């Protein structure tokens, strides 16, 4: 296992380097002089030079690149142009919120959508096309409702009308009840966003598994249908599910950006949107870099989990 992890980790190095390169190039792609774009066309002289230095766009390109890569390697992402805070501090402060919200919605999304997909497949395998269509169409409609609109409705109803959930304020990690209440709505919105894709994949995979011979064997041995569905068919659908989970994380990262800003959550999405609006490029670069690295890590984890859920996949 350790050897595998080292090997799989090694394969990530070029990807990570590629990501760092793309993020480095971002600022250089800004039409015209990036420093002028940030500081205004009329900025000149010393101030402009200072800004170039803070953006890292002074000196020859290769030297800029080398400086960038070596600082990233030392976890130095520069300082915010606005607050002067180290970008590393800013993203690390915001990271826990994003990770907790992301992971919880991933889990909740699975809890909601896997059974939907499994039951839809089961209904279909039993010839109950109506129930299958109802479930899949329902999931599809939910999928196409813009999440931010739903978020507004949720706030209106659950927070303002019923007063159940707070929509603002920092997260007090020491108080679990508060954390749950504070995160309930954003997490729900994000999980709803995954329902359709996960349910659809689950449905296809389970439908296929339900046709497999071992399902018949299980039935022939008197296995109750719920067990047939969940213990046998669903477990064998784990591979596509793990894949979709990996992909869901990509979607989730996009979703957190919007959701965090609606619910005033101090996560990485909020940091990113503020930074984009303020053309705070070191921060933009830092957040995008961190998000991309998280995604890479998730993909590696996905591969590792593969070997866990399906004994046929060998570690190699």
């Amino acid at each position, binding site marked *: 296992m350790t050897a595998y992890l080292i090997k799989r980790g090694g394969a990530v190095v070029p990807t990570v380097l590629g990501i760092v390169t793309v993020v480095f190039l971002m600022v250089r792609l800004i039409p015209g002089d990036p420093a002028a774009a940030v500081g205004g066309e009329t900025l000149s002289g010393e101030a402009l030079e200072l800004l170039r230095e803070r953006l890292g766009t002074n000196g020859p390109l290769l030297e800029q690149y080398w400086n960038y890569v070596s600082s990233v390697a030392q976890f130095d992402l520069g300082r915010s142009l606005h607050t002067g805070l180290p970008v590393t501090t800013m993203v690390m402060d915001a990271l826990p919120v994003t990770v907790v919200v992301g992971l919880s919605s991933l889990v909740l999304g699975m809890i909601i959508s896997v059974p939907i997909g499994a039951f839809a497949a089961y209904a279909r395998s039993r010839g109950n096309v109506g129930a299958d269509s109802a479930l899949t169409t329902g999931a*599809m409609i939910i999928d*196409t*409702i813009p999440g*931010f609109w739903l978020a*507004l409705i949720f706030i209106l109803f659950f927070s303002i009308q019923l007063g159940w959930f707070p929509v603002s304020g920092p997260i007090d990690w020491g108080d679990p009840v508060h954390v749950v209440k504070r995160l309930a709505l954003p997490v729900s919105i994000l999980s709803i966003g995954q329902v359709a894709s996960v349910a659809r994949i689950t449905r296809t995979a389970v439908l296929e598994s339900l046709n497999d011979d071992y399902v018949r064997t299980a039935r022939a041995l008197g296995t109750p249908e719920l067990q047939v569905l969940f213990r046998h068919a669903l477990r064998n659908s784990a591979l596509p599910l793990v894949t979709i989970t990996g992909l869901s994380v990509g979607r989730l990262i996009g979703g957190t950006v919007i959701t965090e800003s609606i619910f005033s959550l101090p996560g990485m999405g909020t940091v990113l949107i503020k930074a984009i609006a303020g053309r705070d490029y070191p921060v933009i670069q830092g957040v995008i870099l961190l998000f991309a690295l998280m995604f890479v890590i998730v993909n590696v984890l996905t591969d590792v989990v593969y070997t866990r859920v399906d004994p046929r996949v060998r570690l190699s």
Partner: protein
Amino acid sequence: MQYSGAQAAAGNPAARTTARLPFRGMKAFVGNRNNLLGLIILSPIVLLAAVAPWLPIPDPLAPDIRASLVGPSLEHPFGTDKLGRDIFSRTLSGLKVSLTVGFAAATIALTVGMVLGTIAGFMGKTVDMAVSAVVDLFLAFPSLLLAIGFIAVFGPGMWQVILAISLSDAPRAVRLQRSLALSLKSRTYIDAARMASAPTWWLLMKHVIPNTIAPMLVVASIYAANAILAEAALSFLGLGLVPPEPSLGNLVSEGREYLREAWWISTLPGVFIVIVSISLHLFSDGIRENLDPRAAGH
């Protein structure tokens, strides 16, 4: 179903092989309920959006502060916003923008995918490796993030949004087209044609493109649906289209201030987002089912 009569009847191996061949020409697009339903819903919407400027409806940008926040009525079927602008004409106008964004982004992704994917699949080693490396690199970024990053560099606006969205879809399209091209490459009829010393372009035009267009369209219509949602999300974040140009996303976003007094401002355009994406999904599902009957559940 393992024991269905159809399966039993398909016992002969020849029939099985034909079934597995990628679909032939237009067959994939017809004769499927979902497919048809998608088109039936989508066509009038597209038509309506296209002819909107000639319809006898108010100018979507013209304010009329005497008719501020008027609910749906005969005169204003979708009501008006705070400025008294007609939400129905704004929705149609927004539809046009959203559909343009959706289709343009999907077309770009599709074209890039077809071209680079085919090249990577057919040209072999070095080119393939180079293309795949770039594709993998872009796939390492979560898609909306890539779009947001693009906007962060090039600023908001229509073409930026289109390019930003296609930037995140194109790598996926390239990867799919590459694998389709690879599987076709190994197919016998290609070999046969090659032996008859057919030129490469002829191979591509005659066999590769016609045989990959349908599966690519399956994903392209999903891209279009996603692009419409992505545009809405970007606009909501203030990274999308510049007002007063209405896109469906802008409309939903603008209405939130008055959600309680005037639900129609953001809800009705929102319903259109849902309808358009569902019809695109249905269209995509239809083609897919025609390509792979198993996916239909039988």
